């Protein structure tokens, strides 16, 4: 059964010094309007800070926005930080921004569940989150 959005908690953040926060704030509003609980950390946070907050806040989803071109450097550090805290498997990691096509597959291999380049619709993100959270919750935990 599909999880209700009101039972979903999502953490949003921008890694590094990148100042392009239009998209992530649009997403924050859209997820809030869809009924989810949104924690927005803002800009200039480190991968460790994101992973620590994800652990403390017990979120279902971590959404990262990068329009600085630094995604191939920063995402591996984030997935490592999530693994170190033992939450990599049950945290759905999404990345959005100016991501060239050629980087999508490598990002997925790193553990990113969904890549949403600029121009993506918030409705497609909402659907993706509900589907993935529902699937995770219906699978018995090891």
């Amino acid at each position, binding site marked *: 059964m599909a999880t209700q959005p009101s039972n979903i908690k999502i953490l949003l953040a921008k890694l590094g*010094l990148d*100042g392009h926060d239009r998209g992530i*704030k649009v997403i*924050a509003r859209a997820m809030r309007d869809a009924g989810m609980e949104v924690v927005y950390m803002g800009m*200039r946070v*480190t991968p460790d800070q994101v992973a620590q907050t994800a652990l403390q806040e017990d979120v279902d989803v971590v959404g990262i926005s990068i329009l*600085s071109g630094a995604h191939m450097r920063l995402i591996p550090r984030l997935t490592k930080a999530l693994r170190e805290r033992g939450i990599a498997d049950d945290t759905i990691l999404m990345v959005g921004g100016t991501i*060239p096509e050629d980087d999508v597959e490598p990002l997925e291999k790193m553990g990113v569940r969904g890549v949403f380049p600029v121009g993506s*619709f918030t409705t497609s993100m909402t659907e993706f989150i509900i589907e993935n959270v529902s699937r995770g919750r219906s699978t018995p935990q090891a």
Partner: protein
Amino acid sequence: MDDKNKQTKRSLSGLEVKPVYTPDDLANTDFARDLSQPGEFPFTRGPYPNMYRGRLWTRRQIAGFGTAQATNERYRFLLDHGQNGISTDFDHPTLTGYDSDHELAEGEVGRLGVAIDSVRDMDDLFLDIPLDEVSVSLTINHPAIVLMGMFLSVSEKRGVDWRKLRGTVQNDSLKEFHGQKTFALGPGPSLKLTTDIVEFCTNHVPNWYTISISGYHIRESGSDAVQELAFTIAQGMAYVESALERGLLVDSFAPRLSFFFGCHNDVFEEVAKYRAARRMWARIMKDRYKAGKPESMRLRFHTQTLGSTLMRQDPQNNIARGTLQALAAVLGGTQSLHVSGFDEAFDIPSEEAMRMSLATQLILSHESGVTNTVDPLAGSYFVESMTNDIEDAAWEYISKIEALGSGEYPMKTGILSAIDTGYIELEIARSAYEYQLRIESGEQVVVGLNQYQSEGSQKLELFQFDPEEEEWQKGRLAETRGRRSPADVKSALSSLNQAARDDKNLMPPVLEAVGVLASEGEILDTLRDVYGEYVDPGVF
């Protein structure tokens, strides 16, 4: 009229647009009072009498990536291909005042702009470029005093008289809190630094444009055209009040203020925005701030077509969008122009995309015929009505900001308050969200994105970033640190700290610090120690 004509249509920013306009729509518009001739108050029709018949706009494509050497090569390429002004794009660490070896800089050194850590990098950036001949725009804000100091230091070293320097420093600190977001210090201290540059240049670098009052980034952050116009003019008023409060005479600094706007797809709304901006600024400067010189009243501006309008789907369509936006900017009387690269939804532009952008400008200049007459849309019942409407709507916002202020300088105090409460940021975020919902519902058609999608997409040759450059830049910084006198650096930074505490103009101690090879990050750290660091409030 049929039913379609009865439906209310709106401009991109929500202004009502009627099916047909007539002289009745201009019943309250007086030619002499509201339009006049180009080059005459209130400058609605343009800052100069003959506009592009006298001189074409400056083709100024912004560029910067990797190291200073790599960017210097791109500048020389652009100068060879028809560009006649340089606009520097700095990387995020430079824009936010961190050295290339800072933890937060990882992966961003030289990535979206050029990395500058010390005056040695600034010297490399302008290698073999005559600083007294080419006009240079330094696109930097909170650390502007440092980069400006480095530029002045390099000029001095090359024997170029500061009075001969023609160029611009963006230095628009206030918009950083709601557009671009490369802030370092809080609103009050960053406004103080902006005013330090205005004061110093007024006295020592008289032909330099001291602030490029920017609406462009506000628009990229998702504002509509009305908000872009209103918040930009409001910021300009705050800078004027801050300089007056400092004791400067309005006619001594106002002629060296310039503006920077974005350009979206709604052609007539954009033209109206530029015309309204000129009229508003002229009246504000004359009536409110008692300027006497025409140069203090006439608004001149740079335009950049908006990156946020560029789509990944069918990227060649972006060439059409860039052309439309550039046309609107020219019909609106821009003084200089950057056409964004058609591949910028993927990465910073390739050389091919920049060549296309310059060609767009050249075709407009030489083939379209639009340069032959001044302010060609003047007198259009529609465009004049739209100019009036957008001005009225912008004044509503400006009045709200003024009402938040108090005392002798209500726009200065008002905008600081509007930033503190998040008012401006939340207004822009609301517009950005509503626009996105209109696209997702299909109400706003975006060709290739939500309608007229094509099968498959062509692969572009994108900009190739050299990941080695970050390590190279860090090595360069270490080498710079190695060749300087630690005692001199310590002493210069301590003088800067003291000058900041004494509320003195900080340009002289910054010049001293860059001269002894203090790094940008060290100088900003000194300022962050005194003033505190600004942290994103994270509102949405």
